């Protein structure tokens, strides 16, 4: 009986595919690899690897403790490598995030409010970052988060650096 091996990627071990162009422009495919992006990123930089109108997929290198952030809409953090602690706090003053604001905003310090709890997420775990709640990430060792969110003030665009162009 065949023993099947499921292959995932990681910061330490990833192999990149690619686009073989027959009659097109490779830039149209916006091809990148999230582990390569995270390997070249500073901790918790929000680097877009996907964009669909106002929506983005951001790759975050999880390492150490992040700033506190909050959004007016739900976001979702998928851990693709490592173990990440997600700390959640119900904002005492929800108006720190303007209603209708798209993307998350950086909070200057640990916000005031009630602790909601925490999630310890490992590879493949998807965590809800609820609208109106502040969140902070912590990782003892480098990891990778793929964030489903909306483009915000701190979204970084590095398409020419991260995407296949030839």
């Amino acid at each position, binding site marked *: 009986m065949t023993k*099947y091996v499921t292959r995932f990627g990681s910061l330490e071990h990833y192999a990149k595919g690619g686009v073989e162009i*027959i009659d097109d422009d490779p830039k149209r495919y916006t091809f990148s690899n999230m582990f390569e992006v995270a390997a070249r990123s500073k901790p918790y930089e929000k680097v877009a690897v996907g964009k669909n*109108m106002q929506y983005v997929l951001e790759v975050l290198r999880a390492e150490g403790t992040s700033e506190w952030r909050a959004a007016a809409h739900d976001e979702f953090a998928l851990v693709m490598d490592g173990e990440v602690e997600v700390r959640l706090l119900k904002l005492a003053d929800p108006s720190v995030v303007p209603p209708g604001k798209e993307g998350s905003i950086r909070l200057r310090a640990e916000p005031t409010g009630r602790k909601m709890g925490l999630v310890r997420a490992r590879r493949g775990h*998807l*965590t809800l970052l609820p609208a109106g709640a502040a969140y902070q990430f912590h990782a003892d060792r480098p990891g990778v988060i793929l964030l489903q969110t909306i483009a915000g003030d701190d979204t970084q665009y590095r398409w020419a650096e991260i995407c296949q162009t030839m």
Partner: protein
Amino acid sequence: MSVQTLDVKSSGPNEHGYRSFSLGEVTFSRDEYFVYVKWPTGRHVMSADAFLRSLQRDVAWEFFYGIVNFDGVIGTVNHYGTVDLFAGRYNDAYRKAELDHVENFPTPRIKGTFAAMLDDWTSATFDPFASPHETGTAFGPKAGSNTAAVTRRRVTAKRMVGVPGDEPLRSDATGHPINRHFLDVPQDEPTILAEPGFEGQVCAFSLFAYLSRSNVTWNPSVVSVCKNSLYCPTTEEYILPIIHGNDRVEWFVQLSDEIYWDVEDRDTGAVRAKVVMKPGDVAAMPADIRHQGYSPKRAMLLVWENGSPDIPALIASGKAPTNPVSF
């Protein structure tokens, strides 16, 4: 004998036990091996298994986003309320010979006919959603039915799978054993420590364990929702039964293993590119192409969609680009 219900026109069973169906000027019939499609200016033959796998996706996805090509000749275009049924419309040779054909139907009518055809033509031995190794034959005279398989409910989370009141997790108890290709996928769930009063508001689940228990292939289902941003992961094995023509930019994130994609011009079928995706790779499918995937081992693919109903009109009018980004 002709059978006609409110929306479905069909004949009685032929010598192989299968009914024939008609939609406008297009007729569909099958025998032990093949499906025959006829329209006023042409006819087409498909292998019954390939046809049923395509038909299954079209019905289950409510005609999905854009174009569902069953092959290089026939398919459907979703106008979100009505659906075009076409033959040769997105095939350069048929277009030049003026042998192509298009008819538009209200969605309930074409869906009713397609669902009836799928149910009648799928025997008890065949599951169109399963990989070839996991199902019996689609061929031969009609032998029973597999209604439970062809009417599976598509998972569409409202917020996130596992959130109280939303789509449930999968387990042996829910009838979702771990797939034979994913027996090595860890099944641990995240550790959730909710403070008193916040039980049910601190939510997380193992997406990879969830996907390892998927009992269908090439069937994106919604697991998390950020307004119109939809995470639609799916498990892929063998060949995507349809060639998906985009009406908006679509993104792929390879979560595990490897998939090969053929990319063609959406309207003519001219080859544009080949894409190889490995774990961690992210790629866009522009809004003017069509694509078909090949997955040698069951793989986890995150399909990321923008479900906004405004996008097709914006792209068609030139107000939105067919490329995801410019750089």
